[in-house]
């Protein structure tokens, strides 16, 4: 815990002298080996016997995406590039799917949201990189988004992703980490996606 947090918790008691102590403690922690309580790490016994009867963990983790559509490569890296990003023919097909699968009825024909969230405003509850959007469509989300992985092959889902990206709210896969921390204000996001919705006055 930082000194600032200490001050916040004990605002009334934390006098100037205590502040000095706080600062010293923070330095101690940074120094690591100096006096004071060492930073405690969680103790986890990883040698526990697996009696779950489930497949090994690695196998389970690989099932999540794409498997039901019969695709051999059934995991996605978080920074995967959207295969159809910028492909105008695929984007048009994605738009047609967006309407015919009733996506437009929830997210509106201009993707600005309605029953479902706005897909153009760069605010993503479940992530706005291609892998995140693909996963949201494939698996569904808890507040009403249906799971389309049961109905659509990945080649169609990726076309829908490309259409959503073309509307400007998504992040390129390479920026997934930065987007997760909200650090896209000064990024060039023109490679595959843009952030044109970001500064909308609403």
């Amino acid at each position: 815990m930082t000194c600032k947090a200490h001050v916040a918790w004990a605002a009334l008691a934390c006098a100037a002298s205590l502040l000095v102590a706080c600062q010293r403690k923070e330095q101690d922690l940074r120094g690591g080996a100096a006096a004071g309580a060492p930073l405690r790490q969680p103790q986890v016994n990883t040698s526990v016997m697996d009696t779950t009867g489930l497949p090994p963990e690695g196998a389970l983790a690989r099932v999540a995406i794409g498997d039901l559509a019969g695709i051999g490569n059934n995991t996605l890296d978080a920074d995967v590039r959207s295969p159809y990003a910028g492909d105008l023919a695929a984007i048009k097909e994605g738009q047609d799917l967006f309407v015919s699968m009733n996506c437009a009825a929830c997210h509106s024909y201009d993707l600005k949201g309605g029953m479902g969230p706005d897909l153009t405003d760069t605010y993503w509850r479940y992530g706005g990189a291609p892998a995140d959007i693909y996963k949201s469509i494939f698996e569904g989300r808890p507040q009403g988004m249906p799971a389309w992985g049961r109905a659509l092959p990945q080649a169609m889902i990726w076309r829908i992703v490309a259409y959503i990206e073309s509307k400007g709210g998504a992040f390129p896969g390479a920026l997934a980490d930065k987007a997760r921390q909200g650090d896209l204000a000064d990024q060039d996001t023109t490679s595959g996606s843009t952030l044109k919705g970001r500064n909308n006055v609403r």
Partner: protein
Amino acid sequence: MTSRAFTVAVGTIAAITLSACGTKENPGRKASVVAAGSASSAAGDVALPAMLNRDASWLPPDAGDGDWLMPSRDYGGTRYSPLAEITTGNADRLALAWTFDDGESHYGHEMTPLVANNTMYIVSPFPNRAYAIDLTEPGGALKWKYDPNPAPIAIGKACCDAVLRGAALYDGKLIYNLLDDHTIALDANTGKELWRTKMANVEDGTTMTMAPLVVDGKVYVGNSGGEMGVAGWLAALDVNTGKELWRAYSVGPDSMARIGDDFKPFYSWLKGKDLGATTWPANAWKHGAGAPWGWVTYDPERHWIYYGTSNTGPWNADQRPGLNLWTSGVFARKADDGMAQWAFVFTPHNEWDYDGVNENILVDLPINGTTRKVMVQFNRNGFAYTIDRLTGEVLVAKPFGHENWASGIDMKTGMPIVVPEKHTVPPGRWVRDICPADIGVKDFEPSAFSPRTGLFYVSVQNICMDYKGNVASYIAGTPYWGAQMTRHVGPGGNYGEFIAFDAAKGEQVWGIPEPFLTYSGALVTAGDVAFYGTVDGWFRAVDARTGKILWSRKLGSGIISAPMSYRGPDGHQYIAIATGVGGGAMTTSSQKGFPPRGSTYYVFTLAQNIPAVAPSAESGQGGGPKKQGGKP
């Protein structure tokens, strides 16, 4: 804020609004304002004494005159309070008594607080929490709260915000619907859940947002989901066990619609066998909607219930040639067994999303010299229907706001005369400037009726649309919709108006134009004061006879709920209103100055009733008086 600052602000608003009234190019309206104004000089003038003296069978059991046990207060749906401490003479001295916040500002607040036994009951939008507030404690102390934990998937299945329109108090129980299709009953004293009945599968796109009606031991509830390809139904549950007694569909063969030999619709086009199925292409009725998500009223003299059915599904009418019965209409049913007695359809083969779910207010009005037992509905389609509630005959049908899709109602058939260029079939092309827009000249926001003035008080929407039908595919759990639209303000540039309407003549008596949408319910009191709110957060008290604005207060968010009035433990009259814009009002959210969402409930009374006690922490209540006086 001091009351003096208030008065100044209110005076300015009133002046602006009244001058706006005066500039309206409607001499008829101006003349009737004058007439109504002169009538108010006769103090205590009561238009309908018989209605004023309706017996206790029109109220839930044990309802005192200071109580409010159901959203419309009485079974006839009048939202009339017999309390008269607040009058046209003193309403300008209304002041804030206390507030409460339910914390659910993500979703719109469309409900009405209830009061019984010195306790206020509030139910929130999703996640549908319930609160009981002890009115005998300073500032209203929380007595209990209950979290029913509905399934979050319901949020994304609700077409128009995860709203809830209220609860009902009956026999010591607080009864309401959860968005995930469960009806629950709580012990009103403790908040303990007594029963929970699953009514539908939320994953299929059904939600529940309406407030139940409870009469003679039966709870009446209906579904929402007119945009999701549901089949509409109304069900009756046993109030003690939650067990379903019967369910009547708005579509399908007579066996599903609970239509039998005693079904006597007034018009010939509504007569025949299995019309709920045969007025559709094969099986289209199964996803034809007609969801009764609005209000249910009850006539204790006849033991019949009345409720409207939603829009027809999908919106793209090209996919469902036919009259599409019984959607966009109204049913009169026997309260006991649900058998239909008559039905009427306001907008047959609905091409514009004009739901029929608005409140059916049951009143007895003099029409052409004879007192008729009628129901009055201010329909989404822009016409105010005064219908003989025993036969289903339309007696009066006149516009109560701006509409241009129909040139009138054919009084021989009750059918609208559609303006040819406003048809949205064939689809695939933009049809410009259809008025009203999908949300109607009035949406669900409930009107009020005063037996003292004989007038209805109605929030009117002045909104139009450009509309394009699209082919919709039915995929369970997703919208079955098939329409694209953009909306714009109607003539005059004012999105809203609050009006007084004479339903016997089909005429507006006065109106107060509002720049923002008026999407709140109304309240009218025995003090001849009517209350309403605006989407930009103004809460107003007006003279029920003249439409003069007596008092206004800007609240924290827009108002889409309905106000109510109760007598506090101190014996004084209070007015309560929920704020929290959302729901269909979000169709105008791009209007400059549109407020953020909110979740605060405000309670007002006359300033002199609020004890002047210096703030103090000694009472353990964080300030304020120990008691408000009167009964503990």
